[in-house]
């Protein structure tokens, strides 16, 4: 009975980081969404689901701190059918569940894929955390870090692993800048300095189509992932 590859692949960190499912078909691309509390992670995930659900088979895993509020919000807003949304409990340590001990999240992702059949992309939303909370490469293939202008326009200058290393940085809620006295140009300059060649976008999800640059980036990642997985 063939259970698994006899040799651990060099790029393989866990038993689910293989880009293929046991039947040889490519597994879903997993994109992590991290960032501080209230920066708009759930709103970003909801907007992405609305923008992409007609074209792609999507699923969402949320990591709440002490409730299932984010999962409940996404279900209530009906951004996806309820069976496509799963919640993970994190024992008061949201960063542990996405970085140091990813077993519960991996399990949630795999159960969704098993139950739903072929899934193109799983969006994994971290619990609100601090500027150092990043996703393990064993869990997420790519990660998006979400900060917002209302939390202080010095956040890009402060940096931290989320801001400097995420595959995409969102600076969200630009519509609030005039009301909170945030200097968007200074934020942009600081962000460019911190990110070097890595991409970032300034977003306002309250505007029509505000999610579009994120949806485009995610779609490009999926195309690149598929090209790599079928090589």
């Amino acid at each position: 009975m063939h259970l698994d590859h006899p040799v651990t692949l060099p790029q393989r960190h866990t038993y689910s980081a293989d880009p293929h499912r046991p039947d040889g078909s490519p597994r879903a691309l997993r994109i992590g969404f991290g960032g501080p509390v209230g920066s708009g992670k759930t709103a970003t995930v909801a907007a992405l689901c609305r923008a992409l659900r007609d074209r792609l088979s999507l699923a969402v895993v949320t990591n709440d701190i002490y409730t299932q509020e984010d999962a409940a919000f996404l279900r209530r807003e009906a951004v996806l059918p309820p069976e496509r949304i799963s919640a993970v409990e994190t024992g008061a340590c949201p960063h542990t569940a996405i970085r140091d001990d990813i077993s519960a999240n991996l399990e949630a992702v795999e159960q969704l894929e098993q139950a739903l059949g072929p899934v193109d992309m799983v969006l994994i939303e971290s619990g609100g955390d601090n500027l150092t909370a990043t996703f393990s490469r064993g869990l997420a293939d790519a990660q998006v870090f979400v900060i917002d202008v209302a939390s202080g326009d010095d956040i890009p200058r402060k940096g931290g692993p989320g801001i400097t290393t995420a595959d995409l940085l969102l600076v969200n809620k630009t519509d609030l800048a005039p009301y909170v006295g945030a200097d968007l140009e200074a934020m942009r300059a600081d962000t460019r300095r911190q990110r070097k060649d890595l991409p970032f976008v300034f977003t306002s999800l309250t505007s029509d189509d505000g999610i579009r640059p994120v949806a485009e980036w995610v779609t490009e990642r999926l195309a690149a992932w598929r090209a790599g997985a079928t090589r």
Partner: protein
Amino acid sequence: MSRTALLVLADGRFPAGGHAHSGGMEAAVASGTVHDPASLEAFCRGRLHTAGLTAAGLAAAAATGHDPLALDDAADARTPAPALRHVARRLGRQLLRAARATWPCADLDHLAHHRPGGMHQPVVLGVVARAAGLPPPEAAHAAAFDSVSGPATAAVRLLSLDPFDATAVLARLAGECDAVAATAAEAAERVASDGVAALPAVSAPLLDITAEQHAALAVRLFAS
């Protein structure tokens, strides 16, 4: 045997999902039963001599090489609360995932294949200990310590308890942990002649009841 393998397996940072579980501590804190180092110690002592002893026996028997599927049935019989069965299988699945990457071997693949829904965590722990080259008494030690280390860590987060106090509680329980592990390992030696009935079957009814209540809560920090 490699003693370091035991340290790897028993390390609270071993990525097997335990950080999201409090071993009944969240319910005990909510009811006021645990509120300071002394009540934490009493709770841990009680858990060690009940759920801890039972788990240690199962782990030692699995590490001996007895049929893990039969031991899983024995674990079911020793776990009357559905919520705790669910948790034990989930933690067993997560431990198996981490262990298959850490100590890859056919025995662990066998478990994953025969019980895709997960086996009770203490049984998996025993099979993993065997895969890591650890003898049954060491598997019993890992299970006994696991029964108190998780709740103690959870108490630090739930009560903002002084972490030095919580660690001192674990140190004070070390001798009792050793004794529980020894009792469990001796019982496991009798499984070959007497069957799984030789294994400890000590339960903690209050932990069973509060686990069911906790599982029904809408707002909680820990999964159990």
